[in-house]
């Protein structure tokens, strides 16, 4: 039996099983799925932990006084435990704290580097008497963050009319009351996921090459390897840009289910003015989605490679340039917006004024893109 046929058979078995667990078996299915997730994660931890220890060992940072066997055994266990502990922390935050725990942990990791990067950039610019340039960089960073928020929040509102809407009665069960007589289609329905995905794939070739080759010096002098391994290089960023645009399309196609909207409208006895219900509505939503996805995808691509632009063209220090875009910026903005939205909903529930004058922060959670939140 060839390897591919095994994989296909496994998938044929696993996919319907997971789908059934997720959709039909309710709470117990969800618990079982969580259990499987944890077990698989521990298995992956053992592989990645081994790879990581090999890496540390190759740098010569292992104390020679410690027996090799004990070093590997202990540290494999410690690294696995560390991961399980981190996951537990994340789940506790989701349960008893505020925000999505796993996303917040990722966010913490990124933010933790920010002060250091700021200080480094500041001191290096100050020593060259270029404080003005530092201030301009801050202004640019501010502008990039604003632009990212703008696009993360951007929606195309499709007006909806309710046929048998009662006048003069208010009920929270009636959608279409007040401000929500429209379907909000997100400019960036796919969120940060395509970037994370493309990023993970970009790690692959260089990592595999590093582990597969014995002669590290020959590898380092190979031009293809060094181009793929340097996230500031031009070839790397071209491939990265194309992948992000491509994955954004795939993800949007997976996430935006126009049939769901059509069914919803039908149930609510509502329609889009000028469009017939049923398949016409379906096609209409599809065509709008694909139209707004193109600018969204190109924008994501630009955000993804912006650190390289900031580093190469503007000469910003690399550890600082990373914050000018890419996965880090999108995660920071997205998670911050989600968490704010949650705090906001607590405040509104108790009739306090929210954090924002207009009272509307849209997180990404409604369209289902949360790292580790589900499948």
């Amino acid at each position: 039996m060839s390897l591919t046929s095994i994989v296909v058979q496994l998938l044929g078995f696993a996919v319907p099983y997971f789908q059934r667990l997720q959709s039909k078996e309710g709470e117990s299915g969800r618990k079982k799925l969580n259990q499987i997730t944890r077990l698989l994660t521990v298995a992956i931890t053992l592989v990645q932990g081994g790879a990581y220890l090999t890496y540390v060992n190759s740098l010569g940072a292992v104390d020679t006084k410690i027996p090799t066997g004990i070093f590997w055994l202990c540290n494999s266990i410690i690294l696995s435990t560390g991961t399980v502990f981190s996951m537990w922390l994340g789940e506790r935050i989701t349960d008893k704290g505020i925000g999505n725990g796993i996303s917040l942990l990722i966010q913490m990791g990124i933010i933790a580097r920010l002060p250091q990067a700021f200080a480094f950039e500041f001191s290096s610019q100050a020593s060259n008497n270029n404080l003005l340039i530092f201030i301009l960089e801050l202004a640019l960073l501010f502008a990039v963050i604003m632009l990212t928020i703008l696009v993360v929040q951007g929606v195309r509102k499709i007006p909806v009319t309710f046929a048998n809407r009662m006048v003069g009665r208010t009920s929270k069960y009636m959608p279409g009351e007040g401000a929500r007589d429209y379907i909000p289609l997100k400019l960036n329905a796919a969120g940060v996921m395509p970037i994370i995905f493309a990023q993970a794939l970009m790690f692959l070739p260089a990592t595999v090459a590093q582990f597969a080759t014995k002669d590290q010096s020959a590898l380092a002098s190979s031009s293809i390897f060094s181009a793929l391994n340097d996230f500031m290089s031009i070839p790397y960023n071209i491939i990265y840009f194309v992948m992000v645009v491509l994955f954004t399309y795939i993800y949007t196609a997976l996430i935006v289910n126009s049939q769901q909207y059509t069914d919803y409208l039908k149930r609510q006895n509502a329609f889009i003015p000028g469009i017939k219900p049923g398949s016409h509505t379906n096609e209409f939503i599809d065509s709008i989605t694909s139209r707004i996805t193109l600018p969204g995808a190109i924008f994501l691509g630009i955000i993804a490679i912006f650190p390289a632009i900031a580093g190469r063209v503007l000469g910003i220090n690399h550890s600082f340039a990373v914050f000018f875009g890419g996965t880090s910026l999108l995660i920071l903005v997205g998670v911050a917006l989600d968490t704010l939205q949650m705090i906001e909903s607590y405040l509104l529930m108790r009739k306090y004024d929210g954090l924002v004058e207009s009272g509307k922060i849209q997180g990404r959670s409604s369209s289902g893109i949360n790292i580790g939140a589900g499948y």
Partner: protein
Amino acid sequence: MKSLITTLKNIFSIKELKDRILYTLLLLLIFRIGTEIVLPGVRADVLKSATNANANDLLGLLNIFTGGAFNNASILALGIMPYVTHFHCCTIIGICSALFPTFTVKRR
């Protein structure tokens, strides 16, 4: 600025919200402390000088995502990376089953 202060006051006047925020901050603090604890048997000073050179390559990028834990050889060096990997695998399966519906039909 004044409205920000009133909002913060409002946040802390709701007991449940206050508790949830403080609890979250506490757990995040524990996570941060964990990323600073180095694995036994690893010489942190050697590792530090060896990894200073790779700021520009992909391992440097990985280090940024784990909040520096990766280059520290911290006990949380992998952090939630395996979990994210697992999540990617599930996504790939999801994409496959969306692109090739035969996977799902076959086993009915």
